[in-house]
C-alpha cells in the first residue's frame, strides 16, 4: 500500500474540485454579459467601464443563437444581466419575452441616441453600427471595388466567399443582388429581397464557399486564396487591417450597410441597476468615441465627437423587424437556390 498517500491526496483534491464551483459563487458587485466574441470587448472596452464604475464584468462570448437558446432555458432564473446581440436575434428574444424594455429605466444617455438605434420603442438599443459591404484582399485586388456589380465579374471565379444566410451579415450580398436586379436604392432593397435571388444565383460560379464559420473564411481571405469576402463587418475587417492583415473594406457606390450591434437587459436578470449603468456607459459620448476607434464602427449617440481616424461613409440602416420576419424563408431559399449544387 505504498500508494496510499497519493491516493488519499487525489481523493481529497477530487472532493475539493467538486466543492469548488459552489464556493467561488456569490460575489456581489458583478454582472454577467453575454454576446458574440469580438476584438476590443474584453481587452479594451470592459476594463475601461470596470475602472470607471468599480464593478466586475464577466463576459460570456458565444454565438448569438446559442446565447438565445441558453437564455431561453434559463428563463426561470436568468444568470445574465445584459445581452449583446444582433437585432434579428434580439427580435426573437423579445418575442419569447426574454428581454425587458429600456424605456423608463435609469439610462440617461439613451435620450441622445439616434432614433433608428432605439428599435421597438427602446426595447433595446444599438450601441454602435459596424459597417458591412465588401472585404477585399489588398494584395490581390489592387484597387478597391467601387460597385457591388464588380463581384459578378468573371475574373473572381472561385475567388469569393459568401457568409451563410444563417448569419446576419449575409444580408449584404442579398441586398446587393437586389439592388443590381431592381435598380432601386439599397435602403429600399430589403423589402424587395425576394427579387434579388435570381441575380444572386448568377454569382454562383464566383462563390468558392458559403461559410458558417467566418474565422476560417477570414483566414483564407487574408492568406490570399479568397479575393472578396461578402461580408464580414468593419469590426473584423478594419480590426484585422489594423493588425497588418492585407484586407480592407470597400465602400461601393450603392452604399454600405449598418450592422445592428444591439444591447438589451435580460428580463429578471440579477443586479439590473448595474446592467443599466453598463448600458448607460456604453452610450456615453466619451465611451462612444472609444467604441468608434476600437470597433471601427459608427457611434450611435448623436453627441459623440467622431474620432478623426474613422471615416466611414453614411450607412444604410435596415428594417430588422422585416428581416427577422422573412429570414426563415430566405434561409430556405438561399440554401436551396444558391447553396445547393
Amino acid at each position: 500500500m505504498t500508494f496510499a498517500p497519493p491516493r488519499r491526496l487525489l481523493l481529497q483534491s477530487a472532493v475539493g474540485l467538486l466543492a469548488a464551483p459552489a464556493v467561488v459563487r456569490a460575489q456581489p458587485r458583478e454582472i454577467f454579459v453575454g454576446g458574440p466574441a469580438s476584438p476590443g470587448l474584453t481587452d479594451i472596452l470592459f476594463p475601461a467601464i470596470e475602472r470607471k464604475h468599480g464593478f466586475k464584468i464577466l463576459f460570456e462570448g458565444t454565438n448569438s443563437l446559442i446565447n438565445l437558446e441558453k437564455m431561453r432555458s434559463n428563463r426561470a432564473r436568468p444568470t445574465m444581466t445584459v445581452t449583446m446581440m444582433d437585432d434579428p436575434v434580439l427580435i426573437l428574444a423579445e418575442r419569447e419575452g426574454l428581454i425587458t424594455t429600456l424605456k423608463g429605466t435609469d439610462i440617461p444617455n439613451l435620450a441622445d441616441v439616434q432614433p433608428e438605434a432605439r428599435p421597438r420603442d427602446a426595447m433595446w438599443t444599438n450601441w454602435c453600427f459596424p459597417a458591412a459591404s465588401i472585404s477585399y484582399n489588398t494584395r490581390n485586388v489592387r484597387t478597391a471595388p467601387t460597385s457591388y456589380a464588380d463581384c459578378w465579374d468573371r475574373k473572381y471565379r472561385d475567388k469569393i466567399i459568401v457568409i451563410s444566410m444563417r448569419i446576419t451579415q449575409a444580408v449584404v450580398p442579398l441586398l446587393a443582388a437586389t439592388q443590381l436586379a431592381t435598380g432601386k436604392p439599397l435602403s429600399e432593397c430589403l423589402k424587395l429581397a425576394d427579387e434579388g435571388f435570381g441575380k444572386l444565383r448568377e454569382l454562383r460560379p464566383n462563390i468558392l464557399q458559403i461559410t458558417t464559420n467566418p474565422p476560417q473564411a477570414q483566414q483564407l481571405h487574408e492568406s490570399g486564396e479568397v479575393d472578396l469576402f461578402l461580408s464580414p463587418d468593419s469590426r473584423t475587417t478594419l480590426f484585422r487591417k489594423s493588425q497588418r492583415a492585407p484586407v480592407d473594406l470597400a465602400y461601393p457606390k450603392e452604399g454600405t450597410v449598418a450592422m445592428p450591434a444591439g444591447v438589451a437587459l435580460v428580463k429578471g436578470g440579477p443586479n439590473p441597476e448595474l446592467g443599466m449603468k453598463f448600458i448607460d456607459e456604453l452610450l456615453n459620448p466619451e465611451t462612444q468615441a472609444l467604441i468608434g476607434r476600437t470597433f471601427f464602427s459608427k457611434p450611435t449617440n448623436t453627441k459623440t465627437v467622431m474620432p478623426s481616424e474613422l471615416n466611414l461613409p453614411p450607412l444604410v440602416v435596415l428594417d430588422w423587424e422585416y428581416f427577422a420576419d422573412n429570414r426563415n424563408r430566405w434561409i430556405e431559399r438561399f440554401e436551396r437556390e444558391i447553396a445547393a449544387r
Partner: protein
Amino acid sequence: MMAPASKAQKLDPLAYLALPGLIFMALVFLAPLLLMLWSSIRGADGFTLSGYARVLGDDYYIQVIGQTLQLALITTAGALILGYPAAFALARAKGWRQVVLFALVFLPLTVSIIVKSFGWGIVLRRDGILNWLMLNLGLIERPIRMIFTEFALYAGMINVFLPFMVLPIYSVVRMMDPRLPDAAATLGASPWFRFTRVTLPLSLPGVVAGVSIVFSLAVAAYVTPSLLMGDRYMTMSMVMAKAFLNLRDWQLGAAMAAVLMTLAVVVVIGAAILQRRLGTAKGS
C-alpha cells in the same frame, strides 16, 4: 461474446451491475432525447407528424439524407480501403517502431478539427502545398481548385475518422494466429484464396467494429463537414443546426434527429448482428 437472450432462464445477480450505468444513461441521455423527440410529434393542436412529413416529403431533404448517407459511406469506405492494409503493417511492425507508428496514428486524434481545417486550407489552396507539388512534378500546368470541393470534403472526413478504423482492425489482427495463413498455404490455398478465406474472415470483427464506429461518427458529424465544405453540402446535422438554432423549428429538427438516429441504429445493429454471426464459429 454476449449471452444470448434465449438462455436467460433467470437473472444472474451480476446483471444488476448494469443498473447504475443504465439508470445514469436513461436519466441523462435517454430522457432528454425522448423529450426532444416528443416535440417532433407535438404540434399546436396535439399529435402531428408534420415534422416527419416535411422531412420525408420534401425532395430537398430527401436529397440531404441521401447526401449524408453518401458522405458517411464514402468516408467509411475510404477509411477502410486505406486503414485495412495499414492496420496489417502496424500489427507486423516490431519493437519501438511499432510504438512510434502507433503513436503517429493516434496523435492526430488529439488535434482539433478546427486546427486541421486551417491546415487543410494551407494544403489545398491554389498556392498551397499540393498544387505546388503537382506543378513542380509537371502533373498539372495551372493550379487547380481543390479547397471546398467534394474531393476535399471526402479527404478531410476520411482524415478525421481514419484512426477509428485503423485501431480496431489493428487490435484484432494483432491477436490473429500468424500460423493460420501458413496452414492455409500448405493446404494449397493461393495468396488470394488465403486472404479471402482465412485472413479476411478472421479480421472481420475488427472491420465490423471499425465500420460501425466510423459510420456512426461520420453520419452524425456536424463540425467537420461544415468546416470543410460549408452550406454547399448540406448534411442532416447541418439541417438540424439550422432548424434548432435559426428557424427555431423544433418539429423539423427533432424529426430529422429521429430519422438520423434510426438510420444509424439500423447500421450499427446490422453490424452487431453481422459480427455475432461471424463470431458464432468462435465459441467462447
